[in-house]
C-alpha cells in the first residue's frame, strides 16, 4: 500500500486525473445548442434618384444584426436614356454605396444582383422609386430613399448576448442618402382578432400616425438595434407587434412592419426529458470518454510502471523489501485506482452538469453500467500496457506501441471493419454487417463501453459508417448481461494474469 499511495499522489498522475475531469465538461455543448447559424447575410438595398443620377446604399448584417462585409451589390437602372450600372461592396461596417451618373427618372426600372461572400447570390428587379404606404403606392420624390430590395426596414434579429432573446433591427436611409437623426421608432401590440392569419387584413390597425403607439427608441443611424418591448399581458396567441419609423416631425414613413409575438418572444426551450438526459450521457460516454479512456489508461500505466520498467529505474524499487508480485500489483493497482478515481469523478461531474442544465440526474441504470464498462476498459488497457512493458526494452517502442494500440482499437477500428466488410462483400448496415459490428465490440477492449451501450439502448450506431440508432434485439447478437459480464471479467483477468506471470517469472 505504501507504493500505491506514493504512485497515486505523484504529480503526473494527479495531472492525468485533472485532465480526465476537465474532459467531462465537454458534455456542456449538448445542453447549450444554439440556433443553427445562418448561412447568408441579410441585405437591404436602398436607392434614390435626383438630377445627377441614381444613388444606392446597401447594408448587410448577420443573424445577430452584426455588420457583414464583402457583400457585392450591382444595380442597373433602365430609363428612357438607356441602362446605367453601378456596384458597391459592403465594408467592415456592413455598408456600401455607389452613385450612377444619369439624368435620373422616377419610373426607372432596376435590376439587382447581390453576391454573398460565401459565393451564392440572388437577383431581383422591378420598377424603382415607388413608396408603398397603407394608402397605396405613390412615386417617390427626388432624393426620397426607397427600399428596393431586402429584408425589410424593420426586422427581427437574435440578441447577441442571449440567444434565447430576439431584438428589433431598424435599417433606414433619410433623404438624399443622409443618416437618419431624431427619427422616432414606435410600437404597438395588436391582438389578432379572427385567428385566421398573421399578415392579412384581419389586423385592424389604426391609421399610422403614431397615435396610441409607444416609443421604442430614437433612430440616429442607418442601422440600429432596439430591444424588444416588454411583453404585454393578455395577448392572444397570434398577436403581433406593429413597429413603425416616424420622421422627426411625426410623419410616418413606409418603414413599418408587423412582427409576430410568438417569434419575437420565443418560449423557453422545452425541458430536457429523462430519456434525453440519458441519451446525452450515453452519447458522451461512448464518443468522448470512450475515446479518451484507453489513452489515459495507457498514459497512466506508462507513467506509474512502464517508463520505470524500461528505463531500469524499477530495479531501485525492486531491491527494496517487497516481493515481485507485490510490486507489480501495487503499480497495477495504483494506476487503476488513480484512473478509476478520475473517471468516477468525471462521471460525477457529467451527472452534475446534466442536473444543472436539465434538473435531472442521469439514470442509475445508465451511470452504473457505464462506470463499470470504463473500469473494465481501464483495467484491460493498464494490463495490456504493463504486459508490453515486460516485453519491450525501450521507452520509444513502448510509447509507440501503446499509441499504436490506441489508434487501432479506437480510431481505425471502424475502418478495419469497413475493410473487412468490403473484403467479405457485405453491405454496410445489413444484418450480417451488424453482426460483425457487434462481434467486434466483444473482441476490442476499447469498444466495451459501446457493447454496454448497445445493450442499454438496444441500438447500434457508428459515426464512421454514418448510421445511427439502428434498432436491434441485443440477445439476437449474443449481448446479454452474462455475456457482457464474462467479457468484462476476461478483459480484466487475462492481461493482469499475463502481467503477473511475466513480472514474477521472467526478468
Amino acid at each position, binding site marked *: 500500500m*505504501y*507504493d500505491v499511495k*506514493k504512485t497515486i499522489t505523484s504529480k503526473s498522475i494527479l495531472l492525468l486525473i485533472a485532465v480526465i475531469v476537465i474532459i467531462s465538461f465537454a458534455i456542456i455543448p449538448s445542453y447549450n445548442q444554439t440556433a443553427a447559424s445562418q448561412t447568408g447575410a441579410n441585405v437591404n438595398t436602398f436607392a434614390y434618384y435626383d438630377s445627377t443620377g441614381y444613388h444606392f446604399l446597401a447594408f448587410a448584417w448577420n443573424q445577430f444584426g452584426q455588420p457583414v462585409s464583402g457583400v457585392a451589390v450591382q444595380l442597373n437602372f433602365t430609363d428612357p436614356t438607356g441602362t446605367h450600372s453601378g456596384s458597391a461592396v459592403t465594408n467592415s461596417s456592413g455598408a456600401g454605396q455607389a452613385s450612377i451618373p444619369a439624368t435620373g427618372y422616377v419610373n426607372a426600372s432596376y435590376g439587382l444582383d447581390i453576391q454573398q461572400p460565401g459565393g451564392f447570390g440572388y437577383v431581383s428587379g422591378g420598377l424603382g422609386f415607388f413608396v408603398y404606404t397603407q394608402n397605396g403606392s405613390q412615386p417617390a420624390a427626388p432624393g426620397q430613399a426607397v427600399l428596393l430590395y431586402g429584408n425589410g426596414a424593420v426586422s427581427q434579429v437574435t440578441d447577441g448576448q442571449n440567444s434565447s432573446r430576439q431584438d428589433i433591427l431598424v435599417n433606414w436611409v433619410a433623404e438624399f442618402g443622409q443618416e437618419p437623426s431624431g427619427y422616432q421608432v414606435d410600437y404597438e401590440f395588436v391582438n389578432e382578432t379572427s385567428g385566421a392569419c398573421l399578415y392579412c387584413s384581419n389586423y385592424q390597425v389604426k391609421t399610422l400616425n403614431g397615435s396610441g403607439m409607444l416609443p421604442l427608441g430614437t433612430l440616429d443611424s442607418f442601422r440600429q438595434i432596439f430591444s424588444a418591448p416588454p411583453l404585454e399581458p393578455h395577448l392572444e396567441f397570434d398577436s403581433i407587434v406593429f413597429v413603425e419609423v416616424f420622421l422627426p416631425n411625426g410623419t410616418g414613413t413606409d418603414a413599418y412592419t408587423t412582427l409576430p409575438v410568438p417569434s419575437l418572444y420565443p418560449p423557453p426551450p422545452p425541458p430536457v426529458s429523462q430519456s434525453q438526459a440519458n441519451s446525452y450521457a450515453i452519447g458522451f460516454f461512448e464518443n468522448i470518454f470512450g475515446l479518451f479512456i484507453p489513452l489515459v489508461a495507457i498514459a497512466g500505466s506508462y507513467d506509474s510502471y512502464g517508463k*520505470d520498467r524500461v*528505463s*531500469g*529505474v524499477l*530495479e*531501485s*524499487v*525492486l*531491491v*527494496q*523489501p*517487497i*516481493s*515481485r508480485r*507485490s510490486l507489480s500489483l501495487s503499480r497495477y493497482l495504483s494506476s487503476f485506482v488513480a484512473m478509476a478515481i478520475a473517471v468516477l469523478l468525471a462521471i460525477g461531474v457529467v451527472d452534475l452538469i446534466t442536473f444543472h442544465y436539465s434538473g435531472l440526474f442521469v439514470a442509475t441504470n445508465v451511470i452504473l453500467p457505464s462506470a463499470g464498462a470504463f473500469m473494465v476498459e481501464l483495467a484491460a488497457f493498464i494490463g495490456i500496457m504493463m504486459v508490453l512493458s515486460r516485453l519491450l526494452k525501450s521507452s520509444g517502442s513502448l510509447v509507440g506501441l501503446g499509441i499504436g494500440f490506441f489508434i487501432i482499437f479506437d480510431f481505425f477500428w471502424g475502418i478495419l471493419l469497413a475493410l473487412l466488410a468490403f473484403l467479405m462483400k457485405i453491405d454496410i448496415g445489413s444484418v450480417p454487417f451488424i453482426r460483425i459490428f457487434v462481434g467486434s465490440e466483444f473482441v476490442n477492449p476499447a469498444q466495451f463501453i459501446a457493447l454496454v451501450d448497445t445493450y442499454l439502448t438496444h441500438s447500434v450506431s457508428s459515426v464512421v459508417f454514418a448510421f445511427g440508432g439502428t434498432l436491434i434485439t441485443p440477445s439476437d447478437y449474443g449481448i446479454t448481461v452474462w455475456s457482457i459480464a464474462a467479457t468484462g471479467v476476461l478483459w480484466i483477468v487475462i492481461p493482469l494474469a499475463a502481467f503477473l506471470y511475466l513480472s514474477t*517469472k*521472467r*526478468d
Partner: protein
Amino acid sequence: MGPLLEFQRLTKYYSSNAPAIDDLSFDVHDGEIVGFVGLNGAGKTTTIRIAAGVSLPTEGTVRVDGRDVVKEKAAASRSIGWVPEFPNVEPNAKALDLMLYFAGFHGITGGEARRRSEELLSTVRLGESEGKRIRTFSQGMKKRFSLALALLSDPKNLVFDEILNGLDPEGIHYMRELTAELRKGGRAVLLSSHILAEIENLSDRVVFIHKGKIVESLTTEELRSQGSAEGVLRVGIANLDENALSYLRSFGETRVEVANTVAITRFAGDPASVNAELVSRGYAVKELSYQRSSLEDYFLKLVGVTGAGGDSQQ
C-alpha cells in the same frame, strides 16, 4: 561464523546459448569482505544482480541470511544492500525525497527517516546536494547516492558492483574506511571491481570468475603467497638521457612512457636503492612508484589470457 550470503549452484541463461553464470557456488561469511574478480562479461554483475533480487536465476539459489531471494524475496531484501555499477534511480526526484521514499519500504518513517537520510547523505558527501534532483548528479555522485541508499536500512549484507568506478580518490579512501567498518560490524560484503590492487587491499578473500564459472577462491594471504615478487617500477626523470636508460635496463625490460617516465616490468630489485643511485648520478627523480601486481598477474595466469577482454552480455 556462518555464511550470510550463500550462492548455491547458481545458473543464469539470458538466451538459449551459453549461460552467463554456470553452476556457481560460494559463500560470503559475516565479517568477511569478498572480492569478486573476473573479466568483462565473466558473470560478476549477473551474480550480484541475482543476489540483490533484481534478476531471477535460471537455476540454483541465493540465500541472504538463510532466506531465498526468489521465494522469500521481501524478507531477503530486508537484509541486503546493493550498489549497482551504473546506479539508476528516479532522475527527477530530489535526493532527500528519494531517500525518504525508500526508507518507507523499511518501515523507517518520519523524523527517524529524515535524520538517517540526512546523516547518510552527509557521510557520502552529498549533504549539500540533498535538495538537488538526481538527474543533475555526476556518475560519481550517483554512485555515492546509491551507496547511501544501500546503507539506509543498515543491512547485514552488501553487494557492491564495480563500486570504485567513478569514485574520486577521496571516495576510494572512504570506501577503504567503510569496508573496514563493515568488517568490524560483522557485515558480509561481496565486492566486484576491475581495480585489482584495491580488491587486494580491501578484501579478505578473492573469488575468481571466468566465463560464468568460479575458477578459484583464495584468501588474500594465500593469494600473496602465490604471487610473484616481481612488479612494475615507474621512474619519472626530468633530465632523462641514454645513460639513465642504460642503468635502468639493467633491472629488466624498460619502456619509455609519457613525460619522461620509464616503466621497468618484471622489476625484482629495491626501489629505494634505484632512487638513491639515480640521485647520486645527478638525475632529478620527480616520480618513483612500484606496483607489485601479484593479483593481476595471478588472475591473468589463472584465466589464461594476457589482457582484458571477453564477451559482454550484461
